[in-house]
């Protein structure tokens, strides 16, 4: 359990200080949207889920009891919301937005001296990475995203996914193996 400043803010909110919630909201808004976006590669879905996450945090307000780092707690809510969304039938019927610019929140990374051809290649590569990530089963995807982008430890990921550290280690291993297979063109014939 941590006693980080975010927990203190959440405790202040639990006591009725709404400005503390606003500070937490501003601090985590982009992180949660980005996490959800990388889960689905769809801006609409990502924002819908993110709002659901923050509303849950808001509703939890008065009953909040710190049992882990605040970031672990809020990403647990986000992960469960994403996994639930994944299970929902409607998602399977959505138009695949990764191949179209519509519904995409992604912006190209600002010009890093790449030529137009290189930029196009980068964009295509990112699309392939996104598609590869989306092809992973929910738990593998969540574990990898939490590890790679949020830097959570295996123990914290285990708390979020309600599984042991050994199971998380196995999930991450299998997730990376599956990604390498999906992105075989990036790794050549040897891998």
């Amino acid at each position, binding site marked *: 359990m941590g006693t980080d400043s975010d927990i203190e803010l959440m405790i202040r909110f639990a006591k009725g200080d709404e400005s503390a919630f606003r500070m937490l*909201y501003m601090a985590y*808004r*982009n992180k949660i*949207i*980005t996490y959800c*976006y*990388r889960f689905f590669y769809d*801006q609409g879905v*990502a*924002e819908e889920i*993110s*709002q659901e996450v*923050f*509303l849950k945090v*808001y*509703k939890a307000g008065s009953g909040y009891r710190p049992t882990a780092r605040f970031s672990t707690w809020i990403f647990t809510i986000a992960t469960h919301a994403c996994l639930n969304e994944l299970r929902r039938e409607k998602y399977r019927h959505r138009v695949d937005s990764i191949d179209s610019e519509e519904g995409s*929140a*992604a*912006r*190209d*990374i600002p010009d890093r001296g790449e030529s137009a051809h290189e930029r196009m290649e*980068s964009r295509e*590569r*990112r699309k392939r*990475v*996104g598609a590869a*990530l989306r092809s992973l089963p929910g738990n593998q995807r969540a574990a*990898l995203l939490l*590890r*790679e*982008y949020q830097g959570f*430890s*295996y123990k914290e990921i285990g708390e979020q996914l309600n599984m042991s550290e050994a199971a998380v*280690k196995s999930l*991450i*291993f299998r997730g*990376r193996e599956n*990604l*390498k297979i999906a*992105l075989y063109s*990036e*790794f050549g014939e*040897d*891998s």
Partner: protein
Amino acid sequence: MNRPCPHSDLLNPYMDGELPEEKRRFVEDHLESCLACADEFQNLRKLRDLLMDCEEVSVSPDFDRLFWKKVDAFEEKKLKNAFRRWLGKNWRLGFAPVFATAVLLIGTTFVKDTRTMMGRETMFFDQMELFQDFDVVNNLDLLEDVSGDGDLEGL
């Protein structure tokens, strides 16, 4: 077909910083001597680089407004539910406004009727006074004089 090195399962936790010091040093030494593991480790790092080379995600301008709207709706619902719960516990008190409204309605009707009756009487007396005034005006000598002479300049 190459058989994987028995130590390759340490590579993922090594890259993630999840190994204790002793094992970490073992992997570092092992990577110096095992070509298969060194290749595998390179691939893992390349995969990480690929994942990190990702787009920035922007937030749509309506996001905040929609979120706070949901918060407002939640607060409103919470308030209604709290009132319902209170009413459930204090249903007798809930009748108080109903009773008060009924008393008020009956009272208003009664007062209105009384005033109507009093109003009629008042009109009668007002009219009587008017008649009296009319008589007085009619009997004014001054007006008779004026109409008789037809000359108002003398007034």
